[in-house]
């Protein structure tokens, strides 16, 4: 006879951006030849906002012939010191230059789009006759935040004493995919839970192609013991990771029920129903444009032992990736002695 799980709980799934949470500029110096070139390109810029790219060297103005900005190999901005007008713009998709605010050392891009992401090179050329030149290159990423909050789905009302709690957190779409972390009682789940509570896994899809993503999730769950929670690929890996929710082909799966097998196979059941709660952030929504908007899904499976969870809670929240401090918005999943409630805050 099952005894009802007696704990009060909130679920937290906190999402952070795959880009390390801040929009500060990336500063570096490279010394080439006799002069040093100072290039400064923001690592991450919020879509729709402006970005200032800096490229300067200690060359006196009369010795300067031109400053050119390239995206990839395509020149889109040229400052020529002895010409009037001194600034020339060559049209390039995804790039809008504010000519009035730009000059030899500062390039102002406005209304950046996902397509604006890429490698930017600055070439400073000395005057005639030799035209010595220095080139420096940096990458700029355009990021976009999720519109809604992350959501926990598949949470049941009742859990038996020996019954696994298996839930899923979804966040996004955003650019790049959000990072997801699980907290239990405000503690990150990666900390070992007090026995006999046990974390079976906390997964995140990591593969890039649709057909194999469920395969990779299976591989992850083949490990039976404590998993590394979440961790999306780090800052450096901003490659596209397709998610099988995006194309909608996996929609319409069965909704989770109490009959879910307790075998540790995370991804074999892909429930694609919209989250039961009315919320912002439709799963599977994808904005138009060249950007790789992605959802993140993390499944958490753990065993809650009644005696150790007086106020056991699973919180669901989300943080705004690119702001300096992390904001957590809580969804409360409450469970306590005689009943379990699912509530949104």
């Amino acid at each position: 006879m099952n005894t009802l799980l007696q704990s009060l709980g909130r679920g937290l799934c906190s999402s952070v951006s795959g880009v390390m949470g801040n929009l500060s500029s990336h500063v570096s110096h490279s010394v080439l030849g006799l002069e040093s070139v100072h290039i400064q390109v923001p690592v991450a810029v919020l879509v729709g906002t402006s970005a200032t790219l800096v490229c300067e060297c200690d060359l006196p103005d009369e010795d300067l012939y031109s400053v050119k900005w390239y995206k990839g190999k395509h020149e889109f901005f040229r400052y020529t010191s002895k010409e009037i007008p001194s600034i020339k713009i060559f049209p390039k998709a995804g790039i809008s230059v504010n000519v009035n605010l730009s000059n030899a050392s500062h390039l102002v891009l406005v209304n950046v789009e996902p397509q604006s992401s890429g490698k930017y090179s600055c070439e400073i050329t000395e005057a005639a006759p030799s035209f010595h030149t220095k080139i420096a290159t940096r990458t700029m990423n355009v990021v976009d935040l999720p519109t809604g909050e992350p959501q926990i789905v598949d949470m049941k009302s009742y859990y038996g004493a020996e019954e696994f709690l298996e839930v899923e957190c979804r966040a996004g779409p955003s650019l790049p995919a959000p990072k997801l972390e699980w907290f239990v009682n405000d503690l990150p789940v990666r900390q070992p839970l007090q026995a006999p509570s046990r974390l079976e896994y906390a997964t995140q899809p990591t593969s890039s192609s649709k057909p194999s993503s469920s395969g990779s999730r299976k591989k992850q769950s083949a490990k039976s013991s404590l998993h590394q929670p979440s961790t999306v690929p780090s800052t450096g890996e901003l490659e596209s990771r397709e998610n099988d929710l995006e194309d909608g082909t996996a929609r319409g799966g069965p909704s989770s029920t109490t009959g879910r097998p307790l075998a540790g196979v995370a991804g074999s059941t892909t429930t694609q129903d919209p989250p039961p709660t009315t919320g912002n952030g439709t799963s599977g929504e994808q904005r138009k444009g060249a950007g790789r908007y992605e959802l993140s899904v993390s499944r958490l499976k753990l065993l809650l032992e009644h005696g150790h969870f007086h106020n056991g809670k699973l919180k669901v929240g989300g943080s705004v990736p690119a702001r300096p401090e992390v904001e957590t918005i809580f969804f409360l999943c409450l469970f306590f002695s005689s009943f379990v409630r699912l509530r949104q805050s």
Partner: protein
Amino acid sequence: MDEFRAYVPTHLEKVLVNETAQIKCDVSSNLTNDRILLVVWYKDNVPIYSFDTRGPHVNSPSHWKDVAILEDRANFKTTREQSRAMLVISPVQKKDAGIFRCRVDFLLSPTKNSNVNLEVVVPPDVPKIHNEAGVVLPSHAGPYEEGGDLVLICVVTGGMYPVDFFTIFQPNLPDAG
């Protein structure tokens, strides 16, 4: 500089040492009424040649070359319509090998960059034939005793590539007696 170079198309050009190297540069423009303002050649990122047709030089372009590197062996040539151009180096030397970047600044079009990887092929020296004692044999070897051993050593120096050896044996027997 290397990151930017990855975007620039690179073309391989091989030339025999002491011959004439013709290093092409793409100076074409899609826009009508466009013209070249400036062409600069960089070798291993250092400028070695510039062709300046801006302002006062419109009708008589100004050539500058780094004589320490090119001496007087180099000249930049364009066709009349400025559709094709090349840097001509003659006679080309082994030290000229390397990556040449051609940068073209246009009046109306964006700047064009193209790379040429110049490989200067140096053939090996004429082979020398030694006998066992290490004496160089100018035209003939011997005399050798009939029934004895004849050993010839062929030595090749110089060149850049592994050498294949071929032996051509042409018996030329003396008249009997």
